[in-house]
């Protein structure tokens, strides 16, 4: 018995020693791994410096810039709230959905706290920040060919410039950043509005770089959707034209010259002889979107693909409609103001194509039918293949008409205007402006005629609001809008339109960050 006890004591002693050894060992293990133990990095993500290592990485980041552009809060196919719904073409009669916030846009009662406005502002700056990050890091990467690098730079600079072009037209003075911001302090330091002329100078610098880059004149079918020289020249021309008509009033000669130069350069790069050789409907034909030579730049959607399809054809279709999509419409579709319905000249085939009347008892109104994919491939779920056209030659040609008109080259202006009218199947300006009484009274000047032509040719392509701003100084625009018939407008109140509506309010959350340097626009 005694021996047994001794043995068990021995055992216990051995266990004690082992236990102590184990404890010491564990303590050492845990203490020794301390430093790296707390430095945990996300196994699913790489840091910015880790990312930019090869030219492929730069391309992937460039794709990220295009992706940002595609968002419907940015410039995607359904971003009409921020452009066309501000104009006299479309809007909504629904003052209820989402608590009436979208209605504020066409009712000219927009508040700085509007959440859609904030989304748009955010999406625009998100795109810019992606371009900046790429441009700040691209020089750390070795490229096999310098030409590739210059092309990537040109694309990123162009996208950045395009977004600033939207910002400066929608808000006036805006914060301007051209390099990557990586710390909160850097962001805070750059949070201030920069005067519109400075912003324009940056836009022109970036776009000029793109226009002089080794980008292809036109992107081949496989890479449609990327920026080309045609794109850079067309938009650079538009930027000069816009600055000439909205900012440099009275001192716009050189801008108009530049606008003319780049728009002409773009026109010279076309892959067709006469616009008339391209049927109007081909422009919107899903089967021809990668080959139609009129298209300069578009955002690409994939037909039948559950993740990448275009929604616009099906969404625009009203109940009872069959033009756009095999997906049955459920409501009123995309609104068309009667003001626009009345704008079309008699027998303009573009009217029949662009808008359609639904006689469904619960609709009895017009809806947008310009964007169509009623193919079986798009199917009953409306997985359309429409690309969203950002720039096409009819636009360039009408801008050339506009520039020439401003420059006093009336003959040239009319020639350009007629290119579009002829292709559409309409009489020439000469004939209409002298024989069509209605035309003569409504579009009494060449300027108004060009504005009209742009409206019907480019309807619902998110240009109308900017066309109005280019054509009329803001006080004239107030008069113009107030001259419209309320009954042709819908539920939104024309009377609410005032000089404040030249610009959106700066989103509330930005103004409270720095009320002095992020001052609010007047009237809000």
């Amino acid at each position: 018995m005694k021996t047994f006890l001794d043995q068990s004591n021995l055992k216990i002693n051995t266990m004690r020693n082992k236990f102590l050894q184990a404890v010491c060992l564990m303590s050492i293990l845990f203490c020794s791994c301390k430093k790296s133990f707390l430095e945990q990095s996300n196994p699913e993500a790489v840091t910015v410096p880790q990312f930019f290592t090869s030219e492929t990485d730069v391309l992937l980041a460039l794709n990220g810039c295009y992706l940002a552009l595609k968002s419907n809060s940015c410039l995607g196919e359904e971003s009409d709230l921020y452009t066309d719904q501000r104009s006299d073409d479309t809007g909504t009669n629904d003052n209820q959905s989402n608590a009436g916030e979208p209605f504020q846009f066409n009712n000219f009662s927009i508040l700085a706290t509007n959440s859609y406005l904030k989304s748009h502002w955010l999406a625009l700056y998100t795109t810019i920040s992606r371009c900046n990050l790429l441009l700040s890091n691209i020089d750390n990467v070795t490229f096999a060919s310098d030409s590739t690098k210059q092309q990537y730079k040109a694309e990123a600079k162009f996208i950045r410039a395009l977004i600033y072009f939207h910002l400066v037209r929608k808000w006036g003075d805006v914060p301007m950043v051209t390099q990557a911001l990586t710390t909160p302090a850097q962001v805070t330091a750059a949070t201030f509005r920069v005067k519109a002329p400075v912003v324009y100078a940056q836009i022109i610098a970036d776009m000029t770089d793109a226009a002089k880059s080794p980008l292809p004149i036109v992107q081949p079918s496989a890479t449609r959707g990327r920026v080309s020289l045609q794109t850079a020249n067309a938009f650079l021309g538009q930027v000069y034209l816009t600055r000439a008509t909205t900012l440099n009033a009275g001192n716009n000669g050189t801008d108009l010259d530049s606008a003319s130069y780049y728009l002409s350069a773009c026109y010279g790069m076309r892959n067709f002889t006469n616009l008339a050789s391209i049927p109007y409907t081909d422009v919107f034909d899903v089967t021809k979107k990668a080959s139609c030579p009129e298209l300069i730049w578009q955002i690409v959607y994939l037909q039948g693909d559950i993740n990448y399809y275009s929604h616009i054809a099906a969404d625009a279709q009203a109940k009872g409609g069959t033009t756009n999509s095999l997906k049955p419409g459920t409501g009123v579709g995309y609104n068309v103001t009667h003001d626009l319905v009345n704008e079309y000249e008699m027998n303009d085939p573009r009217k029949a194509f662009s808008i359609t009347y639904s006689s469904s008892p619960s609709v009895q109104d017009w809806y947008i039918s310009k964007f169509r994919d009623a193919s079986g491939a798009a199917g009953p779920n409306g997985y359309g293949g429409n690309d969203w056209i950002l720039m096409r030659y009819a636009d360039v040609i009408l801008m050339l008409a506009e520039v020439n008109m401003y420059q006093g080259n009336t003959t040239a202006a009319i020639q350009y205007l007629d290119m579009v009218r002829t292709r559409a199947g309409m009489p020439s300006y000469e004939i209409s402006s002298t024989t069509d009484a209605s035309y003569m009274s409504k579009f009494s000047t060449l300027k108004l005629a060009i504005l009209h032509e742009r409206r019907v040719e480019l309807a619902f392509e998110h240009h109308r609001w900017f066309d109005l701003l280019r054509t009329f100084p803001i006080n004239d625009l107030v008069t113009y809008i107030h001259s419209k018939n309320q009954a042709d407008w819908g539920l939104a109140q024309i009377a609410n339109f005032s000089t404040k509506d030249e610009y959106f309010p700066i989103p509330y959350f930005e103004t409270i960050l720095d009320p002095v340097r992020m001052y609010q626009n007047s009237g809000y």
Partner: protein
Amino acid sequence: MIKKLQRIFTVHLVFLLLLSKGASAQTIRLDLPGTDLAKVVTALQQQAPSINFSYSQESLEKVRLDRVQVKAGRLQDALEILQKRYGLHYLMDGNNVTLKYVPVAAPPAPRATEGHRIEGTVSDENGQPLKGATVHVKGSGNTVPTDENGHYSIEAAAGSRLEISSVGFSTREVLVKDGSSLDVRLKEGANVLNEVVFVGYQKMRKSDFTGAVASVKAKELNVSAPTLGQALVGKVAGVVVSQTDGSPYASTKIRVRGVGSINAGSDPLYVIDGYPVGNDLYINPNDIESIDILKDAASAAIYGSRASGGVVLITTKRGKDGKGKLEYDFQYGVDQLAKKVKLLNGPQFAQLVVDGRNDSYRDLVQNAGLPWNDNMFKDDNTTRNAKIPGNAGSISIPTELYDFANGTVIPPKYNTDWQDALYRNAAFVRHNLSFSGGTKTIRYALSGAYQSQDGIMVNTGQQRVNFRANVDGDISDKLKVGANLSFTGNTNQETQEGRWDHSPAFGALIYMPIFPVYNADGSLATNLAAAQSAAYGYQSIENPVATAERTQITRKGNRNTYNAFASYELLSHLVFKANLGLQTYNEQYQYYLPSSLSAGIYPPFSPQAVAAAYATSMTKTMKDQLAEFTLNYNRQFGKHSLNLLGGYTVQKTDINVLNVTARGFQNDLIPDITSGAQGQVTVNTPATVAAGVPTGGAGADLTGKSVNTLISYLGRVQYSYEGKYYLTGSIRTDGSSRFGPDNRWAVFPSVSAGWNISKESFYRGWLSENSTLRLRASWGLSGNNSIGNYNAIQTFANPSGIPFGNNSPSTAYYAGNVADNKLGWESTSQYNFGLDLGLFHDRLFVIANYYDSRTYNLLFNNNISAISGNTNATILTNLRNSKIQNKGFDIQLDGKVVQTHNFNLNLSGNISINRNKVLNLGGASTIITNGAERSYLTHITEAGQPVGMFYGYQVGGMVRQSDMANIAIDDANYNKATQSFPKDYVLKGPPRSTAQTNPLRPGDLYFKDINGDGVVNSKDLGIIGSPYPKFTYGFVLSMNYRNIDFNAAFTGSYGNQVLDGQDYYLYNMEGSGNQYADVVNRYRSEAQPGNGHVFRASRAGTQSNSTRLSTFYLQDGSFLRCTNISIGYSLPDIAGLHKTGISGIRIYAGLNNAFTITKYKGYNPEVDYNYSTNSSAANLTPGVDYGVYPLVRAYNMGVHVTF
């Protein structure tokens, strides 16, 4: 005098150190003439200096001993002599020695007739034998203690009374009968300060603890509650436990002393048997021994960076040496809907539909400047739509509800009560088996439980299995080891909550009573409302019974916890302890949305419904590892007591999630991701979600891996002097991987002090005879790291895709948010002042605490300019100089109102008052948040106010016909373009809203023009109500009479308001879905103006005017709820039962959530819906109700058998 002498009182001599040979081998000599106990103890103290003697001065003074003479070689022998000769009975139990004084020299008493010998066992309520209990024959000098097995033997005559007492138990008297055997059970009781509480890495007597702790013992829990959280409701002061959701798998929400955070979590830290590892929601309530909630920062600071929400310490039952005990508990119950919401019936709803469309038609015609006459109410739908295009849903009336020719409502064909259709009486079954026991060297407690609870909503429920094994062993006096193993497995059948398009609970409120549940053939009637939605302005909602039955959501969780510990006495008084833990959790979540439900307006099985069908499967594995090493030094130096604790802990949590969605189901035969179409299977990441891939409701995490690590050093010093003065200091240093390299480490100190005034000589029963009084004060710092991982470094997001040409999409990468590499802790500094008061022999006990806490360096998703490119233009950062204050008062009262042998009545209650206030937002602007389904904002957080106050307009009144003339005058002066009146214009009528789309009409509400500029716009917004109660309270009544026990528990809240998010649909007078019954009181005409509060019906007109958040949509959230009533009966000891081995049977019945008294219109005023998809914003939007599973009333019966 005799009475006084007969009074039995107790002296506790606590050996806080292990009794060492040195101490017990000493020779003890006492020779004290004419002494009292104080002198005896002082003498003992001198001769055994390593032992601390603490006793009640007051009691000792009353005792006189003629002469005490002791000579012994060992302390134990001396104590033995003291017991035999002088009635100083002692109990030595491990570290504790308890002395009981029973006067030997009692005054001459009638000599009991030659008694016979009585034998028996004294045990506790659970049948565990009590050693060292005192058995005394009343009126005689006969007194004996019980032995190791609780056994006693004493001479006592039949008809005399035995008085049995023991420390920590209520004294009991029993009548001696003829038999020779008498077993007695004692109930726990006496001073709550003698309870042992767990305070983090240590346990100690409550009387030694100087912080604020709330303790709940197992017997105070409502055992018939299905989850631990529910069992806790209303039981603890300063801790708000809310039942916010009635689903069988939901947990309660626990908030300790208010909300100090904005964007970081405010949940307390849960520590189960020393293992801090999140909340095991489904722990077996029967396994719980006690719950201790550390409320003040000084107490919680020992848990450092995770403690600012308080710490909930859960201790499970452990084995005791003695006879093995087997217990079996069976419970059966039926659950039902606790409250039915009052809604419109079919005919009332039909009338509302007609009124709403007619009103809108007239409004829109007049707005368009067209002529109107009331005969146009008889216009058919085609005429209406031709006149006002684009508004069909607002002006068209379902032809089966309206006789157009006569302009009258047609009574609807059906009158369905959708709540009756969706909810059922559901069964609840629970089996619990536990086995515990042990020897001196090894003790064990094993338990297993199975519980099945059907949900009251069809197709919901939970089945649960629990297993636990706790083992303790003493390898030697110095080396002790133990292990805890537990398993929790649950299978949930879940439903979705929130908006009616996926929440059946909301659907049953809004779905129209005019539609049937089933078709004539017995199949579910689907797509009835949705098909008509576009034409008649119904919400496009599916039959909620079909949504509940056909949407398949299951969640299976398995949690395994392995914990092993060992302690070793390195040197005398110095104990080293190692604790190693591992917890794994695996979860399988499956979601299937079938094609047999409408997809928006499109009917089941349509191409659109087929395209909408999808399955999501999520697998989550979590592994948490813990190592803790502590050194504890514990020693008495004369009257000084010192306890030192030092420790090092390290913890690592790995989480791995795979979340996959499959689409392209051609049928519903196999509702799993394996049956999706080729090429339509997505691994879900934030990038795919942004691209619109659905991920199975709100219940699933996205694919990803993460590791989170924590290293800590901790120390605590406790010092006390003579049991009067206590001083404690602690410090913990934490390093967390969640924070930026610059701010990874933080230090959390605390100090606290206590003063037992009643032990002072000058305290002579001030407050009452036999009263105790103690004051406490503390300060501490605790932290919060409840944020996601990897927030301090900017990284690239998961790749997405972008198509070019006609190619398949190209991969696109982009950077995530700009991050703050200085990201650090959020800290809470808190003062606590407390008072513990025992009155009338501790029959009334009061614990009161006042606290004032400041949380600073708030973790906050602060606004940052959009130029950062950050999602939603926010950055997670610490707001420097920010401060949120929570101050308040909580008081707990426990009263033993009646205490007799046969009847006991206890009442206890608590009240908590908390005041939350933002002192400084640290340069962040006012935070205005969207907390319900409105684009308009609902909550505001700004300096000087509590976090997340309701934000909106104040209703000024209702427009009446008599106002219209003045409105017309105002109209003539109003400039629409500038939205203003001429300077100095004085408004004649009610103010107009600039956002309104229709002019004011009779029956509309108008808002107050706060700034007096004549119009109502965003400048008139402000705080309109508070989601915070003025106070919350709970009270419990418990009594027992002989073998019957009865309990009733209540909880309540007073003075808070609730934003009923459902109002957006249930109280909008649109007739787009069913509405609260109160809508019948709406304004209909000047002849029928209703109750003057509910505005007129309209499907279009008043939307932007009246349905913005205003005081109209706030409700009183005060309530009083009876959370539990239970009654039990313990079968008397029957000889026959003992033969079968059964030592006790108790049967009981309970009723949970018996009733709730409230004015709230919805199901449950205890609301906690978080509308934001970003759960970290929840603190900013409190007090919102929205489509949540309603509470359940449960009827339970059970039987508890002890073997």
